[in-house]
């Protein structure tokens, strides 16, 4: 496995073969020729699955913001929890007791330590997005040219549908990413680098996506010819699936044109044959019973209840009998126990991190919808990661 900051000869050769199709051809050519050792020099924008950012200072600032976010999530969050416990005890409330959102918010939001923790968390995230998008927009000619150069080239295909009608729920600036997934030409670039801070370093080589793809259950008959990744974003899971199932036809669809455009660029550069299309999860346009596996990576907590219901029906239509539907997301089955501090944090994430649909996601009854549609929910399957990827379903072979 390549490390982002380590250039190996093989990586350079692969990068060179496919990046020559893009505006980075000159850099790629240099890479392909030279086996560059650690401790020496290599062009920026050329290393690993997630390439180094093209400017050292930008890269350094992003590293700092990731470290800062880690500190907020550990030290400042711990200080906030201590304050929450003290406030609740002063009111005679057990800190572990379940407390409704409104009550929890009213008790906790004005505490200076809790407010400061929220402020710093959001500020670091705003700085992260603005710095990244500032760079991509300042160099827009270069980045647009790179995408234009491969829009119609393979391996794989790219279907963009400018002007397509989108439901409002997809247009929000989720995670306060400026422009969200649809409003910036560089939404994909920003998302890919920005989520490094979310994953605190486990995003350089698509680690979680590869882990998810490698653990994904397959149909009982072992047949995996076609796989669909719904809400594929920049195609990290799609790429990981292609690596696991090299002979399968892989499709990634997403409503965000700039997201899949960037996803196609990086798939081409890596030589991965994936078909990306700008389509809705609730209207995929694929034939009935078409896919052996249909999956999605942390999409459902960003979908409104009506969209969720529609996508369950659509998944049923396109998964073949005996096929698997695996909507990877945060844990939502079982009791959703909410302590006061947990409720405050969930509300803060919803309200100020602009996770518009997360609260409804927790109560929308997705497991019941899946069962009622006819899928057999494999409830005894282990979670992919603690608290993540608990739901997977099989369409009965007789359906």
């Amino acid at each position: 496995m390549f490390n982002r900051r380590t250039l190996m000869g093989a990586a350079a050769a692969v990068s060179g073969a496919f990046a020559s199709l893009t505006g980075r051809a000159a850099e790629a050519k240099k890479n392909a020729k030279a086996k560059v050792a650690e401790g020496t020099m290599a062009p920026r924008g050329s290393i690993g699955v997630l390439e180094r950012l093209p400017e050292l200072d930008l890269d350094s600032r992003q590293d700092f913001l990731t470290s800062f976010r880690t500190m907020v999530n550990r030290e400042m969050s711990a200080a906030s929890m201590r304050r929450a416990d003290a406030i609740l005890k002063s009111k005679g409330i057990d800190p572990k007791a379940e407390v409704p959102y409104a009550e929890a918010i009213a008790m906790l939001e004005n505490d200076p330590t809790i407010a400061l923790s929220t402020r710093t968390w959001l500020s670091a995230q705003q700085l992260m997005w603005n710095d990244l998008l500032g760079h991509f927009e300042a160099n827009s000619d270069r980045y647009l040219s790179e995408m234009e150069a491969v829009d119609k080239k393979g391996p794989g295909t790219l279907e963009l549908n400018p002007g397509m009608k989108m439901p409002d729920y997809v247009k929000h600036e989720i995670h306060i990413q400026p422009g969200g997934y649809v409003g910036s030409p560089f939404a994909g670039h920003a998302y890919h680098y920005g989520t490094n801070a979310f994953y605190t370093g486990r995003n350089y080589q698509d680690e979680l996506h590869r882990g998810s793809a490698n653990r994904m259950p397959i149909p009982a008959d072992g047949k995996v010819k076609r796989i669909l990744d719904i809400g594929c974003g920049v195609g990290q899971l799609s790429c990981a699936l292609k690596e696991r199932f090299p002979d399968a036809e892989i499709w990634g669809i997403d409503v965000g044109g700039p997201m899949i455009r960037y996803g196609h660029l990086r798939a081409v550069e890596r030589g991965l044959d994936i078909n990306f299309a700008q389509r809705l999860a609730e209207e995929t346009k694929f034939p009935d019973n078409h896919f052996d596996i249909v999956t999605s990576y942390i999409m459902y907590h960003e979908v409104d209840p009506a969209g969720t219901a529609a996508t369950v029906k659509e998944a049923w239509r396109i998964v073949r009998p005996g096929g698997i539907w695996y909507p990877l997301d945060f844990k939502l089955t079982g009791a959703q126990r909410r302590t006061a501090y947990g409720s405050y944090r969930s509300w803060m994430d919803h309200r100020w991190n602009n996770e518009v649909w997360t609260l409804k996601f927790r109560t929308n009854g997705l497991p019941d919808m899946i069962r009622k549609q006819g899928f057999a929910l494999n409830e005894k399957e282990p979670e992919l990661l603690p608290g993540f990827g608990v739901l997977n379903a099989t369409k009965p072979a007789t359906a």
Partner: protein
Amino acid sequence: MADAKKTDRQTYASDFIKGDTDQAVFLGNPHIDNLMTVVIALGAEIWSDRQRLRIVESLMAKKGKVTSEMVEQYVPSEEERAGWQKEREEMVKRVYAVLSRDTSGARPFGEERKFN
């Protein structure tokens, strides 16, 4: 940021619903919130200078010379990368530890003014 500079090229970006987090005030005064953002941004700027300095030191030790291009393109060893991360995390803790201090006993400074 999403109001990208105008271009005649097809960008496949479309209309979106703008959030209002930019207007959120957590510290009682929007300018105090702004100052907190400034403090974090300054930390990032200081670290980027520190990072450059470390690369310059490495290059001088290994090559005996430094150019801007060499600094930009430097590929650290795994050991250096881990060392930088440790240094960065220690700097963050050292500089910002005060933000996690126990303030449960905090009170306005004038409260304890006594004249007899």
